[in-house]
Every structure is written in structure tokens, then in C-alpha cells.
């Protein structure tokens, strides 16, 4: 039935089940930031706790440690997850990016080797896409993997690798065909990070923590069996992974709905002295978070009815990144003369606003800048000519 906005009894039971589990398990005290070594370890531990309840990757098929949950169930899960104020997912690259990629392109051996440990939260994955000279222009990458018997010898320099400072493995693309150019001759390879010839150097972000890292490959040897898909098929596989990244699951609507709710509370606290125009911005933040949630349900319905996600992913990316930035800018304005105060300041109302604001600045940049997304929308959705 069209435009049916009622949850089924099974969905309602599922929500109740998630809510009860989260109430029982979400740590009462917030974990330290996952960008610190100690916090990373705490978040790893939380992944294991999630896995113990089989909540680690609910949309994965049961055979790989998931629940085979529908996208609607996933949305319900996320709503309850954020509602419970549960920790950030350190395992995100595994669950949403490499997991689906492995399921689509991996050999049975690769799936067996990697998926269960990913699901169990035992191995945490980092991405290795960008290089110093290839950001938006990923195809300009230079890192090489030279075949030597049943091994590849890796040389090169990846950067802006999220989670890599403390993760166990990374996935990335490397030039396996010497002399190849642009999108050709690339392969998708899985590399352990604690490994001879692999050196990881955390890069501090503007908030002072190493939210991403550089990875130097200095003649690191990895078995050819660590290649995902055919030699030379790296670009196509990476594009599939990027599609997963931009797709439905990169940012849960619930995240923004919780932030908008918090913003309303901040407004109520500050309204007396605030520019009344900020009230309209608070309401806009709520509206945009709702719109994002609604459109995600809409896309989920379409996908469950057999549709596929294409350039809509770019529409989503732009919408959530702009709403998140605007929401946090509004909070900064409401905090006014206290907005600059960092954690540790007695007068600071809530340090998470400043942290969230800085994080939101990255939204329009990462996972493909919004400029690139707008190009994609113009060319692929609207059919405008390439430059």
C-alpha cells in the first residue's frame, strides 16, 4: 500500500527489543574520543559488546554474522541507537564499506577470513584512498603494488585515512600495472597495518586529535590472495565501495534528529537573550533533520521494492552535510561568547557543541566534496554536459 506510514507489529517489537538492549548495555559514562588511543580501545570493546548481542551489523546476512535486517529495521535500529546516546561506531568502515564490497567481490576464502572478524569487532578497518596528490581526483593515485611471485610489494603514501591511527587493517587501491594511467591498471588490496614495511603516522585534526593518518608503504609484502577482485579491476570495485559510502548508510538520520533535539533544548535555555532569528534557524534545523529522515525512509522503501541507489547518494551527501554544518553554526551562535570555550573550561556549557561544529566542517569535504557531488548530480541526474 502506498504512502503507508505505520510500522508493522514486527517492526514495533523490533524497536522495543533494541530499546531494551540499549538501555541495558549502553555505557552510562561517555567513552573517550575514538581518536585517542584509549578511546579507540574503549570503542573496540563496545563493538565486541554489540557483537555479543548480535547488533554489530544487523543488515548483513546471517551467514556473515548479521541479522539480515531490512533497511527499515536498520533505520529503527539507528533511531534507538542514537536515542540511547550509544557510542560512535569505530567499525564503520567495515560495516558499511568493506563489508558490502567483500560480499559482492570477495572469494569464499576472503569472506570467510575477513567478514566474521569484522562482524565480531575484532579487526577494525581503515580506508586507504587519497594520496597527497590525489584527493578529489582519485585516479591520479601513484602508490604501486608490484607482483613478486605470490606477493605484491607495496610502495607509496596514502593520506587522510580515517581510523588508521589505531586500526588493524586498511583497504585501498594500488597501481598494479606498471606505467598504467588514470583509472586503468589499479587493484583493490587489503593490507595489515601492523606489518613490516607499513608505517602509520597519525595526523592531528584541527581539534587536536589524530582523526586520520598517513600510511607509508615501504616495500611492504602482502599475499596476492589479499587482492579483492581481478587485477586491474580496482577502480570499478573502489567506485562500488564509494557508492556504499555515499549511499544510505553513511549518516544515520537519527544522528541529526538527536542533534536537532539538543539544539531545541539549547535554544530554550538561551532564548531570552538570543536574536529571534536564531529561533527560525533552530526550527529549520529540526525541519531539515526530519526531511533527511523522511527521505531516507523513502529511499529505503524504494530499494526494498527493488530499486537501486545511484546519484541520489549525491543528493543525500549534500543535504546531510549542509544541514549538519548549519545546525552546528546555529548552536555556535546561540552559545555566543561561550562558543569558543573548550573542554575543561568551567564556563563551557557543553563541549560537544564545539567538537560537533568542527566535525561538521568536514562534512562538505569528505566522501567526495560537495562540489564533486554537485557535478555528479548535474551530469548524471540532470543530464547536463561534462565540461
Amino acid at each position, binding site marked *: 500500500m502506498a504512502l503507508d506510514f505505520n510500522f508493522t507489529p514486527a517492526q514495533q517489537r523490533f524497536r522495543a527489543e533494541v530499546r531494551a538492549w540499549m538501555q541495558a548495555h549502553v555505557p552510562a559514562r561517555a567513552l573517550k574520543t575514538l581518536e585517542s588511543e584509549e578511546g579507540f580501545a574503549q570503542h573496540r570493546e563496545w563493538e565486541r559488546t554489540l557483537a555479543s548481542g548480535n547488533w554489530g551489523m544487523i543488515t548483513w546476512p546471517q551467514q556473515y554474522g548479521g541479522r539480515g535486517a531490512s533497511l527499515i529495521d536498520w533505520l529503527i535500529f539507528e533511531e534507538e541507537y542514537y536515542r540511547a546516546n550509544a557510542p560512535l561506531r569505530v567499525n564503520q568502515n567495515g560495516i558499511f564499506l568493506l563489508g558490502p564490497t567483500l560480499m559482492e567481490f570477495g572469494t569464499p576464502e576472503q569472506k570467510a577470513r575477513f567478514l566474521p572478524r569484522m562482524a565480531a569487532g575484532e579487526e577494525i578497518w581503515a580506508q586507504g584512498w587519497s594520496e597527497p596528490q590525489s584527493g578529489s581526483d582519485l585516479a591520479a593515485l601513484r602508490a604501486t603494488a608490484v607482483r613478486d611471485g605470490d606477493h605484491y610489494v607495496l610502495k607509496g603514501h596514502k593520506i587522510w585515512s580515517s581510523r588508521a591511527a589505531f586500526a588493524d587493517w586498511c583497504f585501498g587501491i594500488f597501481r598494479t600495472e606498471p606505467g598504467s594511467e588514470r583509472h586503468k591498471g589499479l587493484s583493490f588490496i587489503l593490507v595489515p597495518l601492523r606489518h613490516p614495511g607499513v608505517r602509520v603516522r597519525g595526523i592531528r585534526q584541527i581539534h587536536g586529535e589524530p582523526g586520520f593518518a598517513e600510511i607509508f608503504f615501504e616495500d611492504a609484502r602482502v599475499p596476492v590472495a589479499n587482492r579483492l577482485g581481478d587485477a586491474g579491476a580496482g577502480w570499478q570495485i573502489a567506485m562500488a565501495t564509494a557508492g556504499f559510502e555515499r549511499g544510505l548508510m553513511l549518516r544515520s538520520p537519527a544522528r541529526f534528529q*538527536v542533534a536537532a533535539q539538543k539544539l531545541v533544548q539549547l535554544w530554550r535555555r538561551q532564548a531570552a537573550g538570543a536574536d529571534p532569528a536564531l529561533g527560525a534557524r533552530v526550527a529549520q534545523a529540526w525541519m531539515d533533520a526530519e526531511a533527511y529522515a523522511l527521505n531516507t525512509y523513502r529511499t529505503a522503501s524504494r530499494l526494498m521494492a527493488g530499486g537501486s541507489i545511484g546519484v541520489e547518494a549525491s543528493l543525500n551527501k549534500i543535504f546531510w552535510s549542509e544541514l549538519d554544518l548549519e545546525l552546528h553554526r546555529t548552536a555556535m551562535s546561540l552559545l555566543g561568547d561561550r562558543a569558543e570555550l573548550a573542554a575543561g573550561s568551567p564556563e563551557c556549557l557543553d563541549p560537544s557543541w564545539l567538537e560537533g561544529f568542527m566535525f561538521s566542517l568536514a562534512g562538505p569535504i569528505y566522501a567526495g566534496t560537495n562540489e564533486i557531488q554537485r557535478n555528479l548530480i548535474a551530469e548524471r541526474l540532470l543530464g547536463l554536459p561534462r565540461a
Partner: protein
Amino acid sequence: MDFTFTEEQQLMAGAFRELTADICAPEQLRALYDGRDTQAEARWARLAELGLFGVLAAEGDGGLGLADADFILLAEEAGHAALPEPLVEQAAVALPALGAHAGLPSVKALLPQLASGEARLALAHSRNPLANLPPAPTHWLLCESDAAYLIEAAGVDVIVEPSIDAGRRLGRPVVRASAAPLCRGAVARALGENVLSRAALYVAAQSLGVGARMLAISVAYAKEREQFGKPIGAYQAIKHHLASVAVKLEFARAVVYAAVAHVGRTGARSLAALSHAKLAAADAADLAARMAIQVHGAMGYSWEVDLHFYMKRAWALAGAWGDHSFHSRRLQGLVCEEAFALGPDQTFERTA
């Protein structure tokens, strides 16, 4: 939970689009703008022929007995076409609102006539005092704050109020002092609230449609018009303008469709959802209009180019049935005072 439309719904919308391509083609709108419109009666007849006035009427009243979810795409198409006649006001606002009060005298008898299009209703409301008139109206429904009137057209004097949108024939009713109200007090308020709620939703849907039309016109122009040796649509600035319109329309669409579940409800959550739909759709259409004229340049500023028909409809709809201030204040009040539970598990909550 299913956010898709059925094949039937899509087919009905497709059929309506075909009809509008025939009866609201730009040359017909141009005739209207140039004061040479002779097609209003013919258009009304074609709409009636397709059964559009009765989509939401009960089968016993000669209608199709369908639900709002079945009409929302039709309202979008009415916007897409900049349809001059108030099909939506009659079929999706007044008729179902009156249908909920069929026990009131004279209402029951009128419903089949409204459903067939034989009766032509002019609809005014204290929040929208200028009615968008059908050709030769036969009846008026006036919702004042504490009383409602259902009167034959002969009993109402009309002051004409020209709109910049030549497709809207606006009129302010002057009711004779002797007119007897249809109802008063709580019943009149319920009727008035239902009318406003429905109208806000369906104006939002029309805004989506007219926004989509402007985007389509602009994309077509950007592919064709060349400057500095290439189509202007190859320039990043033009691409980004139009991509931003696409984003805004797409997300407004989700909000409008979801608001269907709230229509006619008076709880805080529902009022917020309906105001959200109206605001989001008006914003998207406003951006579409601004970017359309920017992409077209002087061409878009010309009377002889079609774009202005749709821009003017977008501007008019922005103020209709609760303008920006009304919906924005209402929504800010509800959200910022937490008049209903916020939070991620509340997205689809509904209250009476």
C-alpha cells in the same frame, strides 16, 4: 511502512500530465496572459470528463472514493502545469472537508455536483481571504473564524483582485448581511481547520510540481544555449545552481508526501508536519525560480518565454493558504516550545 506510490497512482498522474500537456500547453497559458483565453470552460469540462473532481468523493456521491495518497501526485501535476482552474481547491480541499460534515443541511446534495464538476466552488477562508475562482462559480464556501457559509454564487458579490499570475482569478467575496451560516462555533472551526490543513498540503504539492517544471525548463535551456563555444550547462556555476535546486526539491518531496498522513489532524505534531511541508515546498520552488531566471538570463525575463508562467505561480503559491510568516511562526512555536515529543523515534508519530 511504505513510502512508494502504487502503479495505479503513477498511471493516474501520468494520464493527468498528458491532459495538461494538451489543455495547459504554454501557448494556452500565453493566451491567458495576453487576455485571449477562451478555453476556461473547455478545460473545466476536460477535467470533469477525466473524473478528477470526484477522486476523493465517496462512491455514493459519484466519486472514486480514493484517499489523499491518491491525489497528492495529481496536485503536483496541477502545479507542474500551472493549471489555471482551481481543481485542487474543489476536489481535494473543499469537497473532502465538506464530506466530513455531510450531515449539515444542503451539503449532502452538493457533494455529487462538486464531484462531477457540475457545481463550481469558490473557496475563501479567514487565512486565505481571496478565492481562486473557477470559471462562472456556482457556489461559495466561506470559512470565517467562527462561522462557515455555503452560499449560491448569486448571493455573493465579488471584488476582483488581479494577481500577477494570470492563471489565478482572485476574488474577494462580500456576503450579504442576510446570509445564513452553514454552521457556527466548534463545527465551523473544525471545518475551517480541515480546509486549511488540506489546502496547506495541496498547495505544497503544487509548489513541488511547479518547482520541478522550472528545473526541467532550465535544464533544457542550459543544454541548448551556447556561450563561449559550449553549452552553458557545461559550466560549473550553472551546474551547481541546478544541482542545488534538485537537492532542495527532492527533500521537500519527501516532506510533502509524509504530510499526507497528517492532513485533517489537529495535534501539534500534525500541524508542524503540515507547516513543514508548506515551507519546504515553497522554499524549493523559490530557489527553482531564482536559479531558473539566473540560468536563462535576459531570456527568462521575457514575457514571450514560458518561464514566467511558472515563476509567477510559484510566487503566488508561496503566499496562499498561510504565508511564510503564518507557517513559520506556527512551526517555530510548536518545535521550539517542544509542543510535541521530538527525537528520532517520533518521525511518524501522529496525533488526532
